[in-house]
Structures are given as C-alpha cells and as structure tokens.
C-alpha cells in the first residue's frame, strides 16, 4: 500500500461549486472535529469559500465538486477540472442526483426561464439540470445534503491511502436499527423515505421522530414502486407521493 507519508508533499485539493447552496463546501470548512488535521495533511490549492487566493487551474490530487450542472459554461469548466484532477468526487445530492436544483426537471425550460428570470437578467439562461456523471467520469460520490463529516473525511483519507472509500450503500433503515429507533413508518405510519434512501446521515430525521425525506438520494436498486404502494395505503395522494419522491430525485422520477 502506498500512501502519502509525512515526507511527501501534501496532496493538492480543489473544491469547486456549480448550482447549489454551497452547503457542502461550508460543511468542509466547518470540519469541527478534524479541521487542524485536515489542514496539516492537505494543501487546499483552490477553495473559494475558505480563501480568495489559489488557482483553479490545477493539477489536483483530489477535486471535490458540489452542485448540479444547470448552465452551459459549467460543462466546459467541469471537463477542465476532470482533466486536471487525479481523483474527482461528486459531493452532495445536487452533484450526484440533481438534488434541489433538479426540482424543475419536469417543467419546460422556457417556462422556468420566464418564471425565474422575468426581470430579464441578461445572460442567465436555464438548462435542463444534470449531474456531474452525465459529462465526466467520477471516482466516487460523497452523498448527503450536506454530507456528514464522516463521509467527507473518508473521501479525503481514501486519497491519502490510495484506496477505495468506504461509503454506505444500504438503506437508512439499517442505520435506524443500529441506533434502535422504533420504526416511524411501521409503528407510527409516517411517510418515511428511509427504505429507499441511501444511508450516511446516521438516520438523523427518524431519530427525532420525523420521516426521512431522502436528502441523501435514492440508494442503488431502490424499489420506489413498492414504497409508493405503501404510501398509498397510508392515505397519501398521488401528488403528495410525487412530491416526496421528486424533492431530491426529480431526475430519476421525472424522466
């Protein structure tokens, strides 16, 4: 196993953002438990939220990219980042599933543009939202809205150790059971998205008796039809069901 030893130069990290709330970048800048260690181990060559200096040109050992692609120039930038980076991770739901910016996926672009930019902000056009993986090859996904500290840390450590990061691929239900939360879907009849949602949050909402709203996005092979059937039995209308599924997974559900 080869990894960056103390004598090596520090790995160069670039943090980039496209259409999003910058919450993932904030989460990284707000690395409470390990900020000092992070700065000791990594050279943040480009991280706009933390420093106005630095160059986006690379080369990078690790590029972390948040946000969905909703404007044409972003595609060109993304490809450039990819070309200059050894490892590129998509960070956060917007970059991985489309997240909140993708809610408009089911609406014609002209309609969105007229609604959102009716004050005629020049130069702003709307493009059907898409995810990073549509344009470039990504080496991993750090899920979440925003991702938890554990997963961001795992992503960074994996680069130091040159190994595949260990991210959860199972459902939120597994995390609930590990914590011992009484199931809010079965016992309380709340429309919880846990059974189809990728874990990683530590079952945050169900731990506070709230239904999961799938901010980490659908897990692989999620059986959405089966959960929709359950929601119908709970008495949710088709519109309510649609909203729950399209909040973070509109690109999947509004294909």
């Amino acid at each position: 196993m080869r990894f960056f030893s103390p004598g090596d130069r520090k790995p160069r990290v670039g943090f980039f953002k496209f259409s999003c709330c910058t919450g993932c970048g904030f989460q990284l800048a707000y690395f409470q438990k390990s900020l000092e260690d992070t700065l000791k181990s990594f050279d943040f060559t480009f991280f706009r939220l933390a420093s106005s200096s630095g160059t986006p040109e690379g080369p990078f050992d690790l590029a972390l990219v948040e946000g969905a692609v909703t404007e044409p120039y972003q595609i060109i930038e993304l490809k450039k980042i990819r070309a200059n980076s050894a490892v590129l991770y998509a960070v956060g739901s917007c970059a991985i599933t489309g997240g909140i910016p993708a809610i408009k996926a089911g609406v014609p672009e002209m309609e969105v543009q007229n609604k959102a930019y009716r004050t005629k902000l020049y130069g702003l056009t709307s493009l059907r939202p898409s995810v990073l993986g549509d344009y470039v090859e990504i080496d991993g996904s750090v899920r979440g809205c925003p991702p938890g500290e554990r997963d961001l840390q795992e992503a960074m450590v994996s680069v130091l150790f040159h190994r595949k990061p260990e991210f959860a691929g199972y459902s939120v239900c597994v995390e609930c059971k590990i914590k011992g939360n009484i199931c809010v879907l079965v016992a309380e009849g709340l429309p919880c998205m846990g059974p189809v949602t990728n874990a990683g949050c530590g079952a945050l909402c169900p731990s506070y008796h709230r239904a999961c709203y799938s901010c980490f996005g659908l897990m692989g092979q999620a059986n959405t039809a089966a959960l929709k059937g359950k929601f119908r039995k709970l008495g949710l209308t088709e519109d309510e069901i649609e909203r729950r599924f399209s909040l973070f997974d509109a690109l999947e559900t509004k294909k």
Partner: protein
Amino acid sequence: MTGENVFQKNYEVLICKELFAGWVEGLRDDFKLIGPVGDGVNAEFREIASLKEANLDYQSTMLPPGKAYLFKPLEEIVLFNAGPGGVAAEEPPIPVQKQVLIGVHACDTHAVFYLDKVFLGAFTDPFYKARRENTFIISLNCKTVTDLCFCHLIGTGPYLKAQSGYDMLLTDMGGEFLVELKSERSKNLFNVKGRPPEAGDWQKKDEMETRLLKSFKKDFKADGLRQVFLSRPGHPVLKETAEERCLSCANCVMVCPTCFCHDVYDETDLSLTRIKRMRRWDACQDYFFAQVHGGNFRSERQARLRQFVFHKLDYEGQFGLKGTVGCGRCIRWCPTGIDLTEIAEEMMK
C-alpha cells in the same frame, strides 16, 4: 449449609411479584438491569432501575434482546495506532459489565442459543463470549401471542422447554411468579424463600399453556420445505414479491434475532494515526452484501429475498437448528408486510 439444602431440593418456587421485584432490585449493585419498557409489540429492552419501570406483559420488541445486548450493532474490535515506529494493534478491553436480561420470551431465548452456535462454535468470538458469560438471562413464558407469532410451529415457544443455556424461567401465575432455576449461578444468586409448587400449580401452568397454544393465528407446514426450496428456487412467488413489495431495506434482517451477519471495515481519522476497525450488523438484503471481486452473486432482488426466506426456514445443515424462532419480527417490521411463511406456503402448493 441449611440454606443450600433447601434450594437443592426446590429449584422451583412460587413467590409473590413484589418479593421478586425486590430481589431484582437487589441485583442492581452488581448488574446492569435490562428489561422490557413500553407496551404491546413496540416495547424496547432498556436499562431500568427497578421492575416498576418494566412491563412484563409486553408482547414483542423491535430489536431482539439477545442480539442487541450480546452482539452489539456496532462495535470497535481492533484499534491501530500508527506512529513513526510503525503500526501497533491494540484490542479494546473485553466487556466486563455484568447485566441481567429480564423477561426474555421463549423465542428470544432460543435465538440466543442460535447465536451461541455462531459465536461460540467453530470460532469463539471474545466479545460475544464475555458478554454471554456476564449476562444473566431471566426468561419469561408468554401470556399472550400476537397475530404474527409462529413459535408453536418451530418448537421454540410460547413456553420455554429448554433446561439449560439460560438462568431462570418465570411464569406469571396471577399474583405470583413461578420461578424455575436453570443454572448453577441462579441457585447461588436466588435467595428468596417461597412456596414450593404443588400438583395444582403445575396443572394450572399446563392449562395456561394449552389455552395459549389455541390462540395462535398462524398455521403453515414448517417441515419438509427443504425439498420444495431445492426443487423450485425460481418460484414465481419470489419474483413477484421481490418486484412488487420487497424494498431491499434490510429491516427484516436487522430485527431478526438470529441474523448474525456483520461487516468489518476501518475508520481512519485525518491525523492518520488512529484507525478503528469496526464491526457492524450487515444484511443479505443489501445490494452490496454479495459484491465481491469480479461481480455480485446476488445482484437480483429476488435472489436476496430467497436467501432470507431459505435461511430462516431451511438451512438446518448449518447449525442443526432452523434459522427462525417464529417471533414474527421480520413480518411486523417489513414496511410492506412481506411474510416468509406465506411465501413458503405458496411454494408448497
């Protein structure tokens, strides 16, 4: 000496519930008391200060007591310290906390016997072994059964027939508990004088059991499934259930008292000096469970569902026991109510 003789003669006593509660409270100095809190099927085994907090009339819990308190959902098994001199491995201390599990139903007691086969069999797990030895199990015969219970078909309940492997058996006789001592240590620990049961008391116990047996709703042929499973592994009911209802959420496995699979992975902190090797409950329903180098041998949902159903109702060759104890948790906590016994019945047709 006199006292010992008395107890050697009477390993079964009837004592009033208040006296029993008082004895349990006395254990608090040496043991952590863990008992069922809450009502019906949503009770939960938790640390309690006295039996007043517990509800021994509970019907079921989401997490099974044995698995939750003997085989931790998430635990650190090795700690690596990396420094200039190299990497040193350090084992976390073996758990020494003594605990009493109070009110463990017959099915859940049998599930502990199953876990024993896994963790104290061909390989001894030091953490499980230490917890098992430090755990005093007070089992409890059921007073009611739920719609989903089928222990009577598996031979694991509702009354506990096993004579060893646990410490004490309680039967609620109304105002009194019939206490049956099943381990040497219980004979040393239980020092409450009571009335020795008479023929009438045993008869009453039998009658209660017979009445309870009549109240079961579930009925299916639990034997002879092996042939069916082997001959029709691609039965349409598996495909239909998988496609229409199975969420692959793994709730069934997580709440199963005998499911023992776990994943081992490393957590490295950013100082790169401390690496924790963790063990976490894992589930065959998860897509990545069967992901190995070169592919995934259960990439289809129905293959994963089949794995669960067959492992619970068949696979006796593994440990000489059925994988199920008939507690019904996998059915109750499945968001879409998938019932393994219905699948088996359909396959028998």
